[in-house]
């Protein structure tokens, strides 16, 4: 079970309190009608599924209820950073070399 730092609660809480929400930074177009089918299909169905750092959404569903984003290494399950929804993705390179643990 992962320990996940909630950026809203500013506390590390067990995975049981959270719900996974899929890949982060997949923004819904402000005006979906202006988006062509191919772009819309990208938005709906295509995800990066990387081996390594993955930006993903979590919701602290049994805590503050807020959505936030998380950079997690899909190989080691190491959580590199969590940040509030709407904030930019942190620089992965700096984090990887900085090393949280």
């Amino acid at each position, binding site marked *: *079970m992962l320990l996940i730092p909630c950026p809203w609660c500013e506390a590390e809480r067990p995975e049981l309190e959270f719900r996974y929400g899929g890949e982060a930074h997949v923004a819904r177009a402000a005006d979906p*009608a202006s988006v062509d089918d191919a772009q819309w299909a990208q938005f709906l169905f295509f995800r990066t599924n990387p081996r390594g750092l993955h930006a993903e959404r979590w919701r602290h569903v049994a805590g503050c209820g807020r959505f936030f984003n998380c950079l997690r290494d899909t190989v080691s399950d190491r959580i590199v950073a969590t940040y509030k929804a709407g904030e930019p993705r942190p620089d992965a390179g700096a984090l990887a070399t900085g090393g949280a643990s």
Partner: protein
Amino acid sequence: MTARFRTASGGRVDRARPIRFTFDGKSYEGLAGDTLASALIANGVHFVNRSYKYHRPRGFLSAGAEEPNALVGVAEGPGRFAPNLRATQTPLIEGLAVTSQNRWPSLAFDVGAVNDLMSPFYGAGFYYKTFMGPNLFGKNWAWKTIYEPIVRRAAGLGQPPTNADPDAYAQYYDHCDVLVIGAGPSGLAAARAAAAGGAEVILCDEQAEMGGSLLAETRATIDGAPAAEWLARTLADLAALPNVRLMPRTQAFGYYAQNFVGLAETVSQDERARNADAPRERLWQLRAREVVIAAGAIERALVFPDNDRPGVMLAEAARVYLNRYGAKVGERVVLVTAHDSAYRAALDLKGAGVEVAMIADLRAKADGALPQAARAAGLRVLAGATIHAAAGKRRVAGARLSAPGFAEQTVACDALLMCGGWTPSVHLHSQSRGKVVWEEARGLFLPGDSVQRERSAGACRGVFGLAQAMADGARAGADAASRAGRPSPTMEAPAVADAPEAFGGALGDQSPPAARKAKAFVDYQNDVCAKDIRLAVQEGMRSIEHVKRYTTTGMATDQGKIANMNALAIAADKLGRSVPEVGLTTFRQPYTPVTFGLFAGASRGDLFDPVRKTPIHDWAASQGAAFEDVGLWKRAWYFPQGREDMHAAVRRECRQTRASVGMFDASTLGKIEVVGPDAARFLERLYTNPWAKLEVGRCRYGLMLNEQGFIMDDGVIARIAADRFHVTTTTGGAPRVLNHMEDYLQTEFPDLKVWLTSTTEQWAVIAVQGPKSRELIAPFVEGIDLSREATPHMSVREGRVCGAPARLMRVSFTGELGFEINVPPDVARSVWETLWAAGAALGVVAYGTEAMHVMRAEKGYIIVGQDTDGTVTPDDAGMGWAIGKAKADFVGKRSLARADLSAPGRKQFVGLLTENPRVVPMEGAQIVARADYAVGEHAIGHVTSAYDSPALDRSIALAVVENGRARMGETVFIAAVVAGQRRDSRHGLRSRVPRQEGRAPRWLALSLRRRAAARSRGARCPPGRASRSQSRRRRRASSCAATRRSPRRPAPPSASPFPAHPARRPRARGAPRSGSDRTNGY
């Protein structure tokens, strides 16, 4: 009376405390401190089991957790039977009744042993090759109906217990600075060093006694004292430290992410004797800052013909039985070894008076410290030896040996001890995602770089000597403590003397070339021989993962702890490649089997799942209601009276509701209060319908799509105030809908000022439906004008009902005049009972979910999750009317414009009438276009709902059918899967009743109903109903005669856009719970 093979003195057993037990009905005596294995060995019993596939006699191979053979069934008294326990790990307690397994009728005479003679047919890939046909009646027919049942009965382990487990299991979370796994020499040294500076240390060990190899150590001294003394002192010292917790009988079975380690603790008999409430086992989910893995190493077997005879054992195991338990494995032993450590066993056995007939060393030279000591003690050592076979059947009788200058001959013995070297236990390191690396010189896989905060120490990383392992452990413990941020004062590593290091090792098949066709076992538990592995390679398996699956080597419950390295070496040899090239199979959790009880913990019986009950539940129960599970909710299903069955009860409930008035507990409806200045704007984006212009006090049916454009949920939404909506959802959909709303509100529309609150349990809902519903409730309603004009259909009013504050909605999910009374849950039952009592004069009936279902189907309302399946668009459902055409955007709108979602051929929602009105088709039945379709032909749809309709006095069905709306009036077919008749398998009826037999298949012909048929009945709308024809058009046609036949009063059309309350039930009765249902309850 001392058992015959018990030593006169020594060992750690308590000779003053004899313990009685039985094995296969025969009584034996052991001693406190014995395991089942040591007690049986002390009594001269080695033949304890028959093997999995060949039913060969088997005995004890090891003395520890790696034991593959000696699995027994153990009864600890009534109701406490556990199969497949390793006798080597089962502490002996008074009165144990032990039974051998996998034999019938008895261990000595076993019918299945014929498998051993038939073994030419049981080679590698046996299951894949043998049971292939004939496919007389379809693919895999023979396997499914003939072979599999027999194979399953003949093969296998013990019988599962048939009663519920009477014991309790506890679960804990915990954390510490340093977790040390394994309390052998290196683990003890690590724990001492880690604890010295105050770090919180947990030391766990799978055995009842801590000490690991020190428990069997009689020669070495540590810090000047005999090993046993040093051990006792060290354990006492550690136990006295406030920052150290010792956890014996505790297996670290799994290493997970972020230093999360699963520990399975078996509670001691002493504790359970003291405390009757003590659990049988405890699960510790432990988070450690730093971990020291000191898991030791496992002795490898040698692969040679008949190396599985009872009495053929690992050499160190014999030493453990002797030194730790005072049990001699035999009177005359032969040792076959490729490693010095076996000499230690030989010396100890000789010292205990056991005749050591021969030490056959497979190595050309054996002149290390231990072999020299053995020679000096007068033991006969045969270097460069070859082991040809073990003699004997139910007990080993000799070893067939040869060597340069030693002609092949059988050396008699009653125990044949072998040692192929030592395999470091890298399991936990590997589970932690650390790589293992191959050391060619010694032929070992060793832990490579750590990924998590763990380090290995001692034998599990190839540091084998006692002194070296203890120094390594001390270093690892200090390192762990300092990395956990604790001081770690340097400690002297314990000074070890008289423990010479042992060297050597062999991998692979040791059989002489002439004996390569004999049974030389690699995996004892799954009966895999060396020749099976060679055959697998010969038949094209290249990777060890394929060899493993083809031969099943390493796939038994012991996970090949003893077998894997030999299997790998044999495969590599046959392939002509190196061991690391062939690869290592994955080490999976758990390290050794863990009980289901441990994981279940308290989650069983009534505590398996939370049960949600409405405030009216107990009333329904007192009325004899039958309940059904909907998500976590218990819902009243129907209310049988007298000897009524469900069918009769539902007919009565439906008829009486339509004739007078019915009461229904709708409290489980999901409810969400949507509040804020942007509440209407928010709903505009989350639902397909328009909301901005909905007047305060009015309700509207809302349809929710996911972003892909498919129907996700629906419900009536009432506008309580300009900035406040009372949203209802399906019963099972409430958490999903709230999460969906929060998701969009927080991440896509954060600019909107809206607050969402789950109010599902803040409002109990009493639905009062039927022509007399107004009459029933009117006397109890205060502050609301119930007249048709003042409270029209689809409106909401706040006032009081029976004195309780209420939100009263005029809505209907039955097609009748109806109200839904929302009241606080604490008064709901009294409101219900007050209405119920008053209703007696009107002929009120309580109806359950089944009648609710039937009545809504008679009306043609969908149930999201039953009539839709996540691929249904509003247009597919015939609900294009629910889409606000003027809206620029809502969730799902853009997707509806995708070509696929408006392509011809989509399945559309229709009603079906069977040609035989008495037949109710099975829900889920596949629909085909013609009666004589070919097997495998494309189905054009399926039945989503089907009932016997009391209002129509015939069956009705709802379905999705390709181009359904264009097919109105056509006839379609389904196989005769009829409720109450024998249900045919997935093969369909046609494949079961071949035409040439002259029996026509039974078909159910159904005609699609044209919605035009309903149009003429507009005038028969019940009060408040929208123009019937209009609403009909908006729904689908279906079993539309419902309205024609049910007596209705004429009523003026209302302006309401849609008449009724939609979906209530999330899924079909009896359908499996979905994961999302479980989290219901925001």
